């Protein structure tokens, strides 16, 4: 683990050598964007470019994060670098909060403005029978559907995610106390809870499509419901992958009681998806 320090690397700073990971990531994203755009328009190269790009992106992420993990275990990151990681992860989570804010904002706007406006006197001429009442699929989508209530899957999922926050904290304390057995066990439990959450969500979606006639195309209710819970589920998946990587690293003996930011960063992210879920649980399922 004695990669040579680049110029500028002092005890305080870490400046890496030139790296080919970023350009690989750029090529991957280019292929993915081109593939996705052509695919949804039914054109060549479509799914092929998307699949190749995605595979290349996974390879890049694996290699890049592998490099970082190697550097960290090689003792290349000083306390100052650690602080940089902390700042950057905080700001990254802030950017994620703002991403969700756009979709929560859309839900708020639909419920407070656009749906009531569609039911007001001006629109009566166009849509005399439309009742501006949430949940709605809008004045033109005639198919009836059943909205998704909080019982029982979302409530069980809330309990699962909240418990996973507890198990993750127990794992963190075990890491700080250097109890590696407890650490590995509770990391496993956290991931298990996350995966069960995702399983329930998949079941919930299948239930919505087959039993409730609730689809992504079910007007504004379906749009906001699936986009909000879907993006949340995607973030849970990403968080679970982070936790799995951290778990594997724990079992390989990585991290020290006083030096384990990868663990903490993944934990912050996990708590973030937890908090977003609480918002969803209240705003999407209850209200």
């Amino acid at each position, binding site marked *: 683990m004695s*990669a*040579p320090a680049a*110029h*500028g*690397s*002092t005890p305080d700073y870490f*400046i*890496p*050598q*030139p*790296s*080919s*990971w*970023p*350009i690989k*990531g*750029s090529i991957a*994203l*280019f292929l993915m*964007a*081109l593939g*996705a*755009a*052509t695919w949804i*328009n039914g054109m060549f190269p479509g799914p092929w470019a998307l699949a190749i790009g995605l595979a290349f992106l996974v390879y890049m992420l694996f*290699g*890049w994060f*592998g*490099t970082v993990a190697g550097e960290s275990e090689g003792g290349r990151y000083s306390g*100052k670098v650690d*602080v940089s990681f902390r*700042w*950057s992860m905080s*700001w*990254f989570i*802030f*950017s994620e909060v*703002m*991403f969700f*804010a*756009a979709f929560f*904002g*859309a839900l708020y*706007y*639909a419920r407070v*403005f*656009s749906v009531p406006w*569609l039911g007001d006197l001006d629109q009566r001429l166009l849509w005399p029978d439309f009742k501006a009442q949430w949940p*709605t*699929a*809008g*004045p033109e*989508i005639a198919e009836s559907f059943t909205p998704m209530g909080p019982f029982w899957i979302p409530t069980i999922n809330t309990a699962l995610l909240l418990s996973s926050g507890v198990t993750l904290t127990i794992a963190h304390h075990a890491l700080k106390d250097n109890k590696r057995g407890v650490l590995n066990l509770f990391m496993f439990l956290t991931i298990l809870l996350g995966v069960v959450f995702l399983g329930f969500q998949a079941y919930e979606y299948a239930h919505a499509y087959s039993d409730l006639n609730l689809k*992504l*195309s079910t*007007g*504004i*209710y379906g*749009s906001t419901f699936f*986009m909000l819970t879907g993006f949340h589920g995607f973030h849970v998946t990403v968080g679970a992958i982070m936790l799995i990587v951290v778990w594997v690293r724990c079992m390989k003996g990585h991290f020290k009681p006083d030096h384990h930011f990868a663990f903490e960063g993944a934990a912050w992210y996990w708590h973030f998806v937890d908090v977003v879920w609480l918002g969803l649980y209240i705003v999407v399922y209850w209200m």
Partner: protein
Amino acid sequence: MSAVLDQHGHSHGHDDHHHGPPSGLMRWVMTTNHKDIGTLYLWFSFIMFLTGGVLALGIRMELFQPGLQYWNPEFFNQLTTMHGLIMVFGAIMPAFVGFANWLIPLQIGAPDMAFARMNNWSFWLLVPAAMLLVISFFVPGGATAAGWTLYAPLSTQMGLGMDLGIFAMHIMGASSIMGSINIVTTILNMRAPGMTLMKMPMFCWTWLITAYLLIAVMPVLAGAITMVLTDRHFGTSFFNAAGGGDPVMYQHIFWFFGHPEVYIMILPAFGIISHVVPAFARKQLFGYASMVYATSSIAILSFIVWAHHMFTTGMPASGQLFFMYATMLIAVPTGVKVFNWIATMWKGSMTFETPMLFAVGFIFVFTMGGFTGLICAVTPIDIQIQDTYYVVAHFHYVLVAGSLFALFSGTYYWIPKWTGHMYDEGLGKLHFWASIIFFNITFFPMHFLGLAGMPRRIPDYATQFADFNAIASVGAFGFGLSQLIFLVVVLKAIKGGAKVGDKPWEGAEGLEWTVPSPAPYHTFETAPQVK
């Protein structure tokens, strides 16, 4: 693990005691050096500036006289849309990030940016995004023609070009967010000992706040265009009234991003001007603390004024009043800045080299753009001039004479530090005078056109607008050609010219002037002590 071996492999061909950069194309592709990446950003943005400029000339060519001469209306719409997208996301924003990369580590006494590899990725993501935008011109149906704001329901129609545009914006957004996180972290954590926040150079302050704005609003743009994408292809109804959504909602979400975005494009310009004016007035910046507070106030206010872009799309009178007054409030901190620059010049020992010419030009012409902004903010007036050439004139006064002139000013100011050579002063002055004269010939008549009622984004117009349009088109071609002077000046300074010492400007202050010119490949490997 393979990656670590990769580093070993690389280090074989790399002499650890050799202080120059590695050679060849791969230097630029794989670099982790903030100066290399800054240079890449600056060249990229200049190429995009010329590309967007050519599109603008295509627009002005068509508008030189009434009637349809060169383009069909669909292609004309593609020209206006792509001109806007390329100039905003390809030229102005990356140019400021280029300045940030070059200058922030030098100004705060850090050896590099906090995350050097991610810094490389921030830049190299722009290239595929730009390629997607260029490709979109040549696909069936052509590029997106919805205007740079991509309003629904225009953007929920159209073909492949629109989807390529959406994905390009996603990638550029990722680039901006990573770049901004890097900048914030560098500024907050890597300052030399003794450099407290309130001793930090103004350029760093403005970028700190800009980066905060970027992190806050780029994800909102990503959300908005994701909703457009799902409305287009996956059956959602966010912007479709038939499904209970609302096209106006797109405008709200977009402008929640879009209004902070305009400050993202001007705050770093304020930073540059706050360095150039003191240097050439040979005085300290007047009211440093008030500058910091003014910049922060502008950033906070920028979140609560978005709906002034949509007074005519229908909102309650109370909403119109709120957004009108909130918008006018921004004139206060902006006024603080303008008066501080003027007070800095007051009784200064001034000389007018090219950077100072552009800075004074900036203050003069940008302020005019600010005043027309104030006029646009007044709801009853805005209802008359919404979507007319008056608005086009207004935002080109703040974007071209504001952001772009500040970028020129900064380039002339720091190019001796970047290249080690003084630029050609005569050509620089010619560039300034040609730019400011042609700029006003191009855009000043647009105020009259707008007040007379000429709508924007149309390829043909009533004959009553012919004279001013002809003048504007002549000015636009003059302005475009003048920028080639800039290219010549920069190339000449890179190839040769009078050698300069550490500090070529008598009145310049800051850590960047304590290192040799050109700045060595690695600087501040040991942090300097700031008193």
